[in-house]
């Protein structure tokens, strides 16, 4: 298959930064909500989950990009899932080798990375069309954005729900932690608050910018 360089994205800083802010998988695209809500009850879990997802995202995107000209359209989803599942299994064993306590804390959510739509979405929408190096940078950006989002939730929930950060106590001993914050409802509260903040920032930016793209965002 001939390469069509005009259709492919040139490598710019935006290739990376987009995943952090403009197309943040959690705060903008609202993808992969299951681990976002479930494992962010502590900062450590959020970091571990973010890094594990980033690893799977980067490796599977690279392989998909590498094989993009060999995978027929009819079997692409099956191929992507097998590729993603392979890297999830690798991460699963890897985390067990690093720390069994961390593995117990993350529970079934490691295996569930297979079903994380951020990863399949990247494979389908980006890696299957783009060259290896832009794919690498883009998926790294998306992974960093996902980790950042998990961290934003995990830190707030741990500070409010346990009164600690990475296990270090922050408040005097008589602080009564808001237990609800580390329970499932807390995940929804904190996610809601972050989404509110992000949307408010975006709307404010759109309102202030005079260019027509800004107006379009505002109108929508």
């Amino acid at each position, binding site marked *: 298959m001939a390469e069509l360089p005009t259709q492919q994205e040139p490598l710019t800083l935006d290739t990376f930064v987009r995943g952090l802010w403009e197309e943040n998988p959690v705060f903008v695209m609202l993808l992969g909500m299951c681990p976002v809500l479930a494992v962010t009850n502590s900062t450590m879990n959020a970091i571990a989950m973010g890094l594990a997802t980033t690893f799977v995202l980067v490796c599977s995107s690279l392989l998909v990009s590498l094989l993009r000209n060999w995978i027929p359209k009819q079997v692409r989803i099956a191929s992507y899932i*097998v*590729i993603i599942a*392979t890297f999830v299994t690798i991460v699963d064993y890897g985390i067990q080798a690093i*720390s*069994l306590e961390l593995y117990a804390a993350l529970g079934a959510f490691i295996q569930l990375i297979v079903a994380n739509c951020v990863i399949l979405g990247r494979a389908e929408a980006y890696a299957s069309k783009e060259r290896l190096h832009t794919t690498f940078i883009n998926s790294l950006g998306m992974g960093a954005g996902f980790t950042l989002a998990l961290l934003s939730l995990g830190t707030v929930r741990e500070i409010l*729900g346990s009164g600690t950060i990475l296990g270090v106590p922050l408040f005097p001993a008589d602080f009564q932690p808001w237990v609800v914050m*580390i329970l499932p409802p807390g995940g929804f509260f904190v996610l809601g608050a972050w989404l509110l903040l992000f949307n408010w920032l975006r709307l404010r930016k759109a309102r202030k910018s005079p260019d027509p793209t800004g107006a379009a965002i505002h109108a929508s």
Partner: protein
Amino acid sequence: MNAEVETQPRGGVTPTWPMLRTLGGIAMMSGLLVVLVYQTTLPIIAENQRLLTEKAVFQVIPGAVTKRDFVVTEGGLQPVETGGAGTVIYAAAGADGGLRGVAFPGAARGYQDVIQFLFGYDPDCQCIVGSKVLKSTETPGLGDKISTDPEFLKNFVALDARLNADGTALANPIVPVKHGTKTQPWQIDAVSGATISSNAMARALNDAAQDLLPKVQRELATLLSGEDPKEAP
């Protein structure tokens, strides 16, 4: 995608070979990678598991530095190497080589799921000297207080577990009581807000102790020497 599909040859000719080749190739590569990682991490994971158990045993038995694993079988205690089936208990020795205590597992249904514990038993004082939650899915902030609440953990510093006169069961069953009403050394003062989990812990301890401690106490010599008395000359 639709455009792509339409460019395929018409008349039901599906390019089978490329599909088979791709799926087969990817599956084979996936299998190779998984086996490679599995083989590499297997010894590390086994070592982690061993360290985790060791850490837990040393945590529930103060002063322990070495441990030996035994299996509680129908015929009595046997070193784990003999391959008998049954509950595994851990005899822990101090720096001087003397028996410091025995760690034994227990499990009971909590609020969410079965909670698994490890308890430390000191044969000298015939009491429970430590506890650790090995596996729990109890509610964070409520049920999981059984592994963090310092007041509650004081229950397991010297919990009375004496055997009755003929050594077949505990003299006093270990029972949970409502928070703040503990009067006897064999009672467990429950955590308020984690009553179901506290009760589960007491039940796990009582069940395991009633079953295992008579056997342990009867064969203390085995644990001390580490030899099977029947095989010793």
